[in-house]
């Protein structure tokens, strides 16, 4: 997958020479090893590090920081791009920002007193990530442009080997899959998309060289990214047509810039920032009651969203077009103050006719009209696999994870899978938050993985494998709890597989999740 030109720019000055040196050393070791076993058919063994991490986004880097803080320094991060940051490196479209307050959408073990707004923009989040890399001296551990294409476990040696698409190999005693839940994207499968002669841009691979001034633009998709991009485009483009399939629930966004005294307070008195974080945490926790389960609070949240719509949109028909017909929380709840007003500007138009096809000059909708544009922006989301793995993962006895997950992904506490020892997943099955910061969930995953890794290293284990029956028991209860949630209330979303199996979301409070992850039970595992 090609990364955006912006990502290249961001990383240009950052490629540390240390990286080259260590890569060169590695290659030398590999060559030596190869020389020893010269005639052997099998690829030579690679000296394993303690921990092999796939992905240099928030998750992979967070793991690295926690390892360092715990005194484990021999780990390697494999990153297919040429810069760190994952989501925030890729999603640099105009208007990109987090929709969880920055004080909560950051690591508690590395707070940032300088957030400029309550909801920071993508660039500021990326800066924070770069700051983490610098502060914890992570660059030397990262191997860029290593696109992992296979991850296999050797039971005899107790070693995971990652093979890249260029057939380079890296090995580790424990492996962390931190390749991100939303890191792969492609243009949607709309008839005629290849016929379009104008410019095509995907929201997660923005082309910063394209000038929208004076252009007629179509935006396909009105999800989290779409509603952030649209107001920005309406400001610069000649005309913007927004193609919507399903309207989402939009809540007002209490966004404001952080006053200087506040930054100073956070700097001088870190406890005050922790207090702020706690307050935000509990506010979001209470949202769980509205978003996850169908409760009186759900109705209240829907009322707030409807009032927001009513206040911002006066035309009855437009309001009807923008009113969702599913329970709030069933899909990601959107937050925005400027989306509805943008749609009503003179140079914008919402189109709800189904798309029939894309033609050479634009988008044809079913009411028979061809909407001609210079550029189509696809804010159509990501390729998420909730019933497979992004690359083959092979565990004990050659079992393949993707095959085991055909009917829907399953894990123990979202992090381990029976038959795949010493492997930890961030953002694994049923770890998704619907109402709180992903990083809050991530932190508890990192702590859990750290406990497992310490055990592997400390007891010199070859195998730390969750017991099959433990995993099954866990999933039975998870699925039972999920059945009562809004996600499983009958609406289609990327949270569910084609058959409606929910392998994505965690049915509970972040606090519950944190409690479950804080509890590492040795006898849940088989060791060797």
């Amino acid at each position, binding site marked *: 997958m090609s990364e955006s030109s912006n990502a290249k720019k961001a990383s240009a000055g950052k490629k540390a020479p240390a990286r080259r040196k260590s890569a060169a050393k590695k290659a030398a070791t590999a060559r030596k090893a190869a020389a020893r076993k010269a005639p052997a058919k099998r690829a030579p063994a690679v000296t394993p590090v303690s921990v092999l991490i796939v992905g240099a986004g928030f998750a992979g880097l967070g793991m690295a920081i926690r390892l360092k803080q715990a005194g484990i320094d021999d780990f390697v991060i494999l990153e297919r791009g040429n810069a760190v940051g994952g989501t925030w490196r890729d999603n640099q479209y105009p208007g990109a920002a987090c929709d969880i307050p920055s004080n909560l959408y950051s690591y508690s073990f590395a707070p940032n007193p300088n957030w400029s707004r309550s909801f920071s923009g993508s660039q500021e989040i990326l800066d924070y990530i770069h700051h983490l890399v610098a502060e914890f001296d992570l660059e030397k551990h990262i191997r860029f442009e290593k696109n992992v294409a296979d991850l296999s476990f050797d039971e005899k040696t107790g070693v995971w080997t990652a093979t890249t698409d260029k057939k380079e190999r890296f090995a580790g005693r424990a492996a962390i899959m931190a390749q991100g839940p939303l890191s792969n994207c492609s243009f949607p499968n709309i008839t005629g998309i290849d016929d379009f002669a104008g410019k095509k841009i995907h929201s997660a691979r923005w082309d910063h060289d394209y000038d929208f001034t004076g252009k007629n633009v179509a935006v396909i998709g009105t999800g989290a990214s779409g509603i952030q991009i649209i107001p920005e485009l309406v400001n610069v483009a000649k*005309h913007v047509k927004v193609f919507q399939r399903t309207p989402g629930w939009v809540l007002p966004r209490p966004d404001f810039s952080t006053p200087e005294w506040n930054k100073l307070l956070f700097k001088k008195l870190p406890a005050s920032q922790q207090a702020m974080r706690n307050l935000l945490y509990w506010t979001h926790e209470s949202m769980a009651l509205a978003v996850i389960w169908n409760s009186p609070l759900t109705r209240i949240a829907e009322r707030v969203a409807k009032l927001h719509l009513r206040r911002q949109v006066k035309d009855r028909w437009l309001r*009807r077009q923008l009113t969702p017909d599913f329970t709030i929380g069933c899909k990601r709840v959107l937050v925005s103050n400027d989306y509805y007003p943008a749609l009503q500007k003179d140079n914008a138009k919402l189109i709800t006719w189904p798309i029939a096809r894309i033609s050479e000059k634009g988008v044809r909708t*079913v*009411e*028979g*009209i061809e909407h*001609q544009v210079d550029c189509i922006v696809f804010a159509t989301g990501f390729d998420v696999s909730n019933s497979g793995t992004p690359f083959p993962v092979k565990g004990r006895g050659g079992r393949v994870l993707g095959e085991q997950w055909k009917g829907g992904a399953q894990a123990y506490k979202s992090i381990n899978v029976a038959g795949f020892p010493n492997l930890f997943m961030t953002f694994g099955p049923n770890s998704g938050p619907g109402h709180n910061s992903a990083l809050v969930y991530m932190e508890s995953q990192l702590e859990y993985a750290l406990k497992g890794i310490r055990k592997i290293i400390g007891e010199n284990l070859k195998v730390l494998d969750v017991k099959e029956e433990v995993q099954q028991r866990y999933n039975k209860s998870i699925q039972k709890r999920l059945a009562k949630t809004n996600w499983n209330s009958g609406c289609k979303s990327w949270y569910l597989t084609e058959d409606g199996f929910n392998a994505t979301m965690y049915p509970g409070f972040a606090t519950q999740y944190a409690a479950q992850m804080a509890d590492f039970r040795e006898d849940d595992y088989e060791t060797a």
Partner: protein
Amino acid sequence: MASIDLDKMLEKIKSTQWALSDIDWDAPGAELITEEQWPKLKEFMADLMWIEHVGARAFAALSKKAPTDTLREIYSYFHAEEQRHANAEMALMRRWGMLDGDEIPEPNVNLRIVIEWLDRFADEMPVYVLGTVVPMLEIALDGALCTFLLETVEDPVCHQAFEKINDDESRHLGVGFTVMEMQGRSASYIKMVQMMARVMDPRLILGIASYMPLLNKMRDNVIAMGLPEEKLYKAMQKFERIGGRTEEGRRNPWFQLIKQHGRWVTNRSNKAYHVPVDALVKITGLVPRKALPAVPSWVKELTYEPVATR
């Protein structure tokens, strides 16, 4: 005839779409409209176009109400397809020089009343009411009127457009009747009583009151164009024939009701029905346009331009 498979139908709908630009609206043949035909045809087309548009709005309501994902999606396509018919008919009117500048033709008062009713109440109507009324409207007004048109107009472009429109219509009817049968199959006694109770709903009475004169008005239009009114009635009897072809269809109380209404309409000697309804047509004809509220904004989406650049 067995009911159709709705999932397959949805696939077929998606894969067989047409656009206004598939037709050359400037091709020769416009001159085949006779001078004598022209004024009546103009009024007829304006009404027809509005009926398509009204049908579109009814499908919009169904697309929110239908009981399954598949049906909801089918209806959202039908909503757009009816809009396409209205757009295509407007393109024909433009071809024939029937539009005053770029103006959308004014709907007649009966239609204005129906539009008003739909805008206010359609989304609140139970799905089984709309699901039955819509096929009736489709057959009586949409389907039948199109056939008449082709018998009087020789312009090949008109025939080309209506061939496409009629293909869409046959799918609308197929789905409409399948849904009526589905309703008949599941309607328990209690639900039937519920349905009947709905008749007393004042909003529904309003709807019926606006729908009845519309049928009579269209009958008058048809006669004015020199077509035998029996053809309209025959089309309405088709509703009775197809809708009542299965036990389930017949068991749908709404089918019974609409069918009965259709019989009244087609029986000119039924004075009890026609005298008051014709009077309503006359009265509504007298309603000054200014007295009606502003048209809802969905009406402004109509266009005869195959291509939109902004």
